[in-house]
């Protein structure tokens, strides 16, 4: 038998980046490449619009979208609408997440409840909640409440499934260890199960964030007095594609800001996962 020592196994497979770069140099390089990709995309789009290769009536152009966003910021319209959408999305997200984590915990810990309800919950979850949006508006009015409830019904399922899957994977040795040292059931929950599922909860929170904004915006499409969805819908009615895209870009920026905040919270809470 021969032993082959293959030094290339040691490399991390980053063929595109020259060897010998350290981690911070790499992240700078990749960051620059990322910005370049975005700029190239915007450049091609702008060029296509200017040269009228594609009719700008249909695709608008980056500069038109930017101008529209600046208009909205300048005359103040965007603030009212953004606050409405944010309020709907965030309140729904928080309520849905809290309920989802609690329900997920119970489902994960109590087998009879899990066996009865999980299949039913999966069934209900296959129903696109967006389809129920008109009903929610009928029930809860065209104000913010109907959108909040729509968002809650979406988020709650995401959090339930994430939480209970997390609870089911808890390392049994940790549970035994806790029992061995005389921990009570609620202490086991707080000190073993909860820390264990924090990563699962964060996956749900991040996923839920995008969904909560979508839920609020779709609710506003159907009937609302304000909000970014309302703004986008009105722009579309006026065949103002720049307006539609400007509204979307603003949504994107809001989502990114929240995503960053959640990621920072995650890093702070999960520092045990990052060997220093």
């Amino acid at each position: 038998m021969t032993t082959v020592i293959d030094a290339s196994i040691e490399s991390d497979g980053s063929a595109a980046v020259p060897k010998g770069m350290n981690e911070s140099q790499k992240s700078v390089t990749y960051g620059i490449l990322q910005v370049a990709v975005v700029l190239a995309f915007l450049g091609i789009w702008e060029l296509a619009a200017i040269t009228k290769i594609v009719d700008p009536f249909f695709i608008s152009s980056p500069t038109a979208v930017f101008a529209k966003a600046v208009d909205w910021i300048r005359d103040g319209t965007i603030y009212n609408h953004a606050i409405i959408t944010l309020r709907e999305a965030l309140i729904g997200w928080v309520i849905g997440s809290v309920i989802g984590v609690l329900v997920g915990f119970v489902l994960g810990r109590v087998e009879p409840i899990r066996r009865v309800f999980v299949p039913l919950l999966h069934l209900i979850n296959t129903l696109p909640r967006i389809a129920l949006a008109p009903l929610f508006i009928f029930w809860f009015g065209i104000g913010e409440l109907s959108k909040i409830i729509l968002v809650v019904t979406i988020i709650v399922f995401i959090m339930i499934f994430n939480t209970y899957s997390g609870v089911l994977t808890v390392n049994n040795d940790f549970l035994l260890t806790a029992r061995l040292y005389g921990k009570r059931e609620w202490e086991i929950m707080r000190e073993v199960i909860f820390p264990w599922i924090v990563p699962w909860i964060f996956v749900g929170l991040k996923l839920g964030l995008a969904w909560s904004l979508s839920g609020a915006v779709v609710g506003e499409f159907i009937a609302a007095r304000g909000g970014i969805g309302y703004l986008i819908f009105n722009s579309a009615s006026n065949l103002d594609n720049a307006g539609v895209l400007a509204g979307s870009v603003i949504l994107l920026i809001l989502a990114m800001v929240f995503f960053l905040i959640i990621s920072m919270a995650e890093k702070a809470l999960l520092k045990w996962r990052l060997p220093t």
Partner: protein
Amino acid sequence: MNVQPESAGFQAKPLIEIQAVEHWFRDSRTGKLVHAVKRADVLVQRGEFVSVVGPSGCGKTTLLNIVSGLARPTKGAVRVAGKEVAGVQPSLIGYMFARDTLLPWRTALANVEFAIERGFTGDRQSRAREMLSIVGLNGFESAYPDQLSHGMRQRVALARTLVRDPEILLMDEPFGALDAQTKLLMEEEFLRISERSKKTVLFVTHDLAEALMLSDRVLVLSARPCSIKAEYRITFPRPRNAEALQANPKFIELFQQVWRDLRSENVMGTG
């Protein structure tokens, strides 16, 4: 010489009494009933160091689970300090698992404290610090398990097992997954600690040399469902030195003798 197959009888009032224990459990994955222990009778005297050797998966861990109070025997009786075992007794029994069971989100210090958060009076943190320094981990109090080597993690687990100063130690292959050098170091350290504090130890291993080196008595189990096949008295004087003992011709002779016995009974498996 040092070896004499033991039959019955010992002095009075053993600290751990396992009598006519039989155990079945349901495998959570396959749902099948497993016959883990056919019959076990073990008496451990106060201050005695007893090792249990046998092939992997032969039910050794089940025995420790029963003594610890984590599991109840299907049949038979288990008494510790004269009382029927009816649940865990953290202040009387320390139990170290084979697997790594440090909580990854707790620092080394907080992991040791985990053992004394219930029913312990006194300054928990300084007690945990003291324990970490006894196992040689000064300066690693705030390290997370992921930042420690395997050997260091087992030291933290050992500190957690010892921190409450339990009279009885149940050790389930505590050094089984370590490399040879680290293992020897840990064995020496454990020998030193257990001899000095005169603990009563029930030590499960599949490493015969380890068992002979540490113990006053070695019980040999058969494959599953396990029963006790043989028993050996080890009379090397204490305090012992693991490294010196391994080089001692008498120890080597003993090891070979026991090994031949076991192999002829075909109970050692390949573990």
